């Protein structure tokens, strides 16, 4: 029973009778013959019609973006991707369903000559795709029936290195992929690879002499040279431990994972990176991202094209398309697909401290909303798909490598308190008076130390600097290491923008100076 505006304890009419979750009848809306087996956003499907419905949604989202020139209207050309395929795999429900759909649709066993439906009948109990045999006309060598991607890989990024004591599940995931999806190659990566020069070199990144660290206690995020030796895992743990809020931790992990996947895709000449984000997960990430300052990149949250910063000037570089083919398929549909096809879901490992973050709270809110008002979740995604920023940005954030809104620091200066030197303003708990005066003094010096802030987007700056209202525990050492791709770009950026002293400036133009009269 649902509650209306009245008090149900005293007014019997205040309780409304619960409406059925389906619109009209229990008959399948697709075949109009069989009794329904599942209700998806008020629409009833029988079990045989459910599979093709999910597969159609998956293909309808993915296939217009496979060819180099995206299809504007109905597709008439054969599908052929310009590079290989990489799938991001987390072990969660959406990931496993994505692997299953990609495997059935584009990497069928070689002895079945591309007939995905024959694989279905082997299990006898699963739900099928549409009739592949009818579509694969023209023989096995017909261009229509060639593989869309020559090669497909699955990349799993293990995050246990960020949290000591967490279980390493790489081998479990390797076994799952190798045993269920033998046509796809398994690639393992680790979150600490983001801080590992060897990995950065292996994926084709430019190694630089020395690394930078950033002082996360200042809004300007002052940079300094990294000193001492530390393992990649130590650097990762230091980076995570210095994040100011519980909300920032999952955001940082998500960004690092995304960039590891992208650089892996780049190294393997992938043209497409597919992620198993379902409609429900997409709605959660959209709301969560906007609430953390990522509104400028709301379009990229759904779909994006990424060109590595080093090759943006090269027109020959094919961008990597990050596509979420399950973005029209809700969590319920994924769960039913997995259940009816007997897919094993290992699940994502929960990391400590994430329950009170904005992401986790948004997830609880959205899943509750989906149960009571199933269509609202798709309305969130559809509404966000209509949003776009007023201005196009040419610059990209050095950390997440998404477009960065220009002039964001000027705007922040106008709307927020930037100095606590006025004694009438009470500073927040994480700021000490001594620190304020020391910082203000250093800021007034001739040579400002370089900062990371101008190179960040609003969301990344917020992730690194936003403070909990309860204050943040201050460590003695607030200098955080930075991922390899940031170090690589910083070395270029700082080398070209460092302010020269008067003596150095005079030396550089010495040959052109006129001698002063004696």
């Amino acid at each position, binding site marked *: 029973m649902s509650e209306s505006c009245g008090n149900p304890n005293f007014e019997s009419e205040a309780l409304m009778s*619960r409406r*059925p*979750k*389906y619109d009209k009848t*229990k008959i399948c809306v697709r075949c109009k013959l069989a*009794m*329904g*087996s*599942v*209700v998806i956003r008020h629409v*009833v499907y029988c*079990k045989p019609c459910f599979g093709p419905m999910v597969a159609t949604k998956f293909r309808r989202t993915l296939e217009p973006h496979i060819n180099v020139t995206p299809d504007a209207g109905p597709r008439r050309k054969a599908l052929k991707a310009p590079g290989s395929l990489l799938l991001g795999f*987390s*072990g*969660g*429900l*959406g*990931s496993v369903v994505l692997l299953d759909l990609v495997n059935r649709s584009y990497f069928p066993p070689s002895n079945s000559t591309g007939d995905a439906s024959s694989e279905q009948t082997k299990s006898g109990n699963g739900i099928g795709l549409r009739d592949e045999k009818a579509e694969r006309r023209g023989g096995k060598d017909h261009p229509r029936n060639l593989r869309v991607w020559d090669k497909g890989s699955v990349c799993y990024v293990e995050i246990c290195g960020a949290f000591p004591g967490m279980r390493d599940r790489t081998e479990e995931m390797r076994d799952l992929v190798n045993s269920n999806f033998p046509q796809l190659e398994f690639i393992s990566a680790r979150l600490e690879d983001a801080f590992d020069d060897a990995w950065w070199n292996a994926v084709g990144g430019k190694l630089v002499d020395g690394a930078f660290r950033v002082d996360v206690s200042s809004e300007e995020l002052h940079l300094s040279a990294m000193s001492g030796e530390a393992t990649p895992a130590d650097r990762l743990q230091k980076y995570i431990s210095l994040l100011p809020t519980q909300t920032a931790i999952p955001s940082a992990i998500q960004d690092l994972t995304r960039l590891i996947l992208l650089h892996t895709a780049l190294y393997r000449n992938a043209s497409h990176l597919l*992620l*198993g*984000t*379902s409609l*429900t*997960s997409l709605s959660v990430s959209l709301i969560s991202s906007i609430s953390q300052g990522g509104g400028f990149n709301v379009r990229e949250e759904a779909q994006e094209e990424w060109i590595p910063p080093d090759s943006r000037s090269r027109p020959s570089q094919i961008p990597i398309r990050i596509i979420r083919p*399950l973005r029209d398929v809700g*969590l*319920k549909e*994924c*769960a*039913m697909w*997995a*259940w009816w096809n007997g897919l094993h*879901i290992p*699940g*994502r490992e929960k990391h400590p401290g994430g329950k009170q973050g904005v992401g986790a709270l948004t997830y*609880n809110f959205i*899943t*509750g909303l*989906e*149960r009571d008002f199933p269509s609202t979740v798709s309305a969130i995604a559809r509404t966000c798909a209509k949003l776009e920023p007023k201005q196009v940005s040419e610059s990209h954030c050095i950390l997440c490598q998404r477009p960065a809104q220009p002039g964001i620091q000027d705007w922040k200066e106008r709307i927020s308190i930037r100095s606590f030197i006025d004694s009438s303003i009470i500073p927040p708990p994480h700021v000490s008076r001594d620190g304020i005066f020391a910082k203000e003094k250093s800021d007034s010096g001739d040579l400002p130390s370089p900062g990371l802030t101008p190179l960040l987007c609003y969301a990344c700056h917020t992730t690194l600097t936003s403070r909990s209202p309860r204050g943040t525990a201050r460590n003695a050492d607030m200098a955080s290491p930075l991922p390899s791709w940031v170090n690589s770009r910083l070395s270029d950026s700082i080398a070209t923008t460092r302010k020269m002293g008067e003596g150095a400036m005079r030396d550089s133009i010495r040959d052109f100076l006129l001698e002063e009269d004696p």
Partner: protein
Amino acid sequence: MSTPPTLTINVEFGGGLELLFANQRKYQLSIPVLIPPDTTATPPSGSAPPPILSKPADITFLIRYLKENHLKERPELFVEGETVRPGILVLVNDTDWELEGEGDYALKEGDEIVFISTLHGG
């Protein structure tokens, strides 16, 4: 002709939900055919007078029965109020429980009830 006092149903857990139930995926349960009309009432204890049994056992009762008799840990991950937590799907004989009246579905002999968690993420 007498009504059998209990009915036998099969319960299965999927999507990681079995971890809350001693890591056992399948249960065969015998539950009373009729339960007290007050759904919040607990099963009769020794000294209390026997309640009037007038309502067929339904899935709402089954959820409470599972919580009280078989759930081993973290009940907040399985129940919310009188129903399952959002994100848990229920199938009645391989059919979505939303087509069967959800918690009001009256259980029958030999029914197969499946609880699937979707809380594994993407």
